[in-house]
């Protein structure tokens, strides 16, 4: 599904004393069936971007093409509910929005409002649970009593139940320990590989992103200042720093060796490969 930003600008509280320009002439094209990541300091407009894809907010200038639909100020969106079915948005701390007494009701709530038949709702809930790695035994459980990792999975399932083509995650690792993070990485990769979803992740967690992103957009000064696959982006250590973004530890180390000792060790994903390099160059 095509998602393309054309010269998008966004100004909060336009024409008031609190006016603040967040984005200016932003151009960006999401890669289909890949894991796209948007990184940037807080306040750089990351969340604004993803809320626009779902038409929760409308750009103050320019337009966004999502599939056959244009999101822009001058014209009304023709089929907004179809757009929201296609684009699933998972907010930061999604489990804080739970308000039902069972997992089944929580996940099925959205569908119910759209007059789906009971049988189909059941089937979809079951499928959504399976996608996030939980089984039907969770259906009668109270979502509030689950572990943090399980809560987040249920929250994700309540979006997947709509069968969206695009799934957007806003800061999905916030508050998760390393075990739950690794589970989330597996889940996101599976959504891409097995279910052919396009994934968009907004995050500041570079170590997490380094383990799963295919393509990265770096947001700063109201626009995209750097983009490319993760190797291209993370080799620009100094540029990233200039925009207030750190790099994964494994890359920080190689970069330090290059800067201080003039030894070029190359880009490494894994700590074990880094060790081999160190061993080779230290002798």
């Amino acid at each position: 599904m095509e998602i393309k930003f054309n010269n998008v600008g966004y100004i909060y509280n336009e024409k008031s004393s609190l006016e603040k320009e967040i984005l200016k002439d932003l151009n960006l094209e999401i890669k289909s069936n890949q894991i796209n990541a948007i990184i940037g300091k807080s306040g750089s407009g990351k969340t604004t971007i993803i809320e626009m894809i779902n038409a929760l907010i409308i750009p103050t200038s320019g337009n966004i093409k999502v599939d056959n639909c244009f999101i822009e100020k001058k014209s009304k969106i023709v089929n907004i509910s179809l757009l929201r079915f296609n684009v699933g948005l998972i907010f930061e701390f999604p489990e804080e929005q739970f308000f039902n007494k069972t997992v089944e009701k929580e996940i099925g709530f959205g569908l119910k409002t759209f007059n789906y038949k009971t049988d189909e709702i059941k089937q979809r809930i079951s499928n959504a649970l399976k996608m996030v790695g939980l089984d039907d035994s969770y259906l009668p459980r109270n979502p509030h009593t689950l572990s943090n990792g399980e809560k987040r999975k249920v929250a994700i399932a309540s979006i997947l139940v709509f069968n969206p083509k695009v799934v957007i995650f806003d800061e999905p690792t916030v508050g998760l320990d390393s075990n739950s993070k690794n589970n989330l990485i597996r889940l996101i990769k599976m959504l891409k590989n097995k279910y052919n979803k396009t994934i968009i992740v907004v995050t500041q967690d570079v170590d997490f992103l380094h383990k799963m992103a295919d393509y990265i957009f770096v947001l700063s000064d109201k626009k995209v200042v750097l983009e490319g696959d993760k190797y291209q982006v993370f080799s620009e250590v100094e540029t990233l720093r200039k925009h207030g973004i750190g790099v994964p530890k494994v890359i920080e180390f190689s970069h330090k060796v290059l800067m201080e000792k003039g030894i070029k060790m190359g880009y490494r994903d894994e700590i074990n490969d880094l060790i081999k390099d160190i061993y080779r160059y230290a002798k």
Partner: protein
Amino acid sequence: MDDILIIKDLTFKYNDNIIFDNFNLTIKRGTWTTIIGPNGSGKSTLVKIIMGLIKSDSYIVIDNTLKTNDNIKEIRKKIGVIFEHPDSTFVAETVMDEMAFALENLELKNDDIKRKIKEVSKYLNITHLLEKNPFQLSGGQKQLVALASILVLEPTILILDEAINRIDYVERDNILAVLSKLHKEKGVTIINITHDIEEAVYGDDVILIDNGKIILNGNKELVFLEEKVFNQIGLDIPFMASLSQKLMYYNLIDEMTFDMDLMVNKIWK
């Protein structure tokens, strides 16, 4: 060094879930301890019990004072806590008023309040923020303001409850530098409670808790040798600890090293 915090035989139930069962903990004065544990291990409950936000009958001594139901105000003066969401504790419309709030409640004289605010804001390098609205600051600045409004009370223990893991990386470096200064120059005891294992490279000691029990406790150089124990409860060890161990195995360095610059200089002398 004496023990600044002693918790003995703490038992705490939440509904029918046992959170702590005969839990014991001591923290030495002037140390920087990281308390780490997976989600749901009881970390936040522990802070609430220490602060008296949750009642418990257990034996808790803070800075040589036995905590009772009557002296909770006195206890809270000794401990400053910075929470994950500083907004939830802000009450004033300017940073200056925010810092003055607790002091006014203590009925300090205006001149003394002004002097303290000046002193602390200088120390934290936030004098340029004094007239600003705390709610409109960046995440890192908010945490500095939260810290400032605690420091005016001159606490002996500073507890960080998941306070730095959501801050931008540049701002986080700045806060950690400020905390180091505070720890070194003023001898403030720091207890950092977090689920982010990378934060454990700052400070001296590490306590690993899971299911309300202390699994590992000691100097970080020793604790992180137990990588398997961390893995068993679903945690990794910090990058630098993992790298250190592997390099020690290949005889490239001789001891656990948490500082990246230092390590590079050890390998390439």
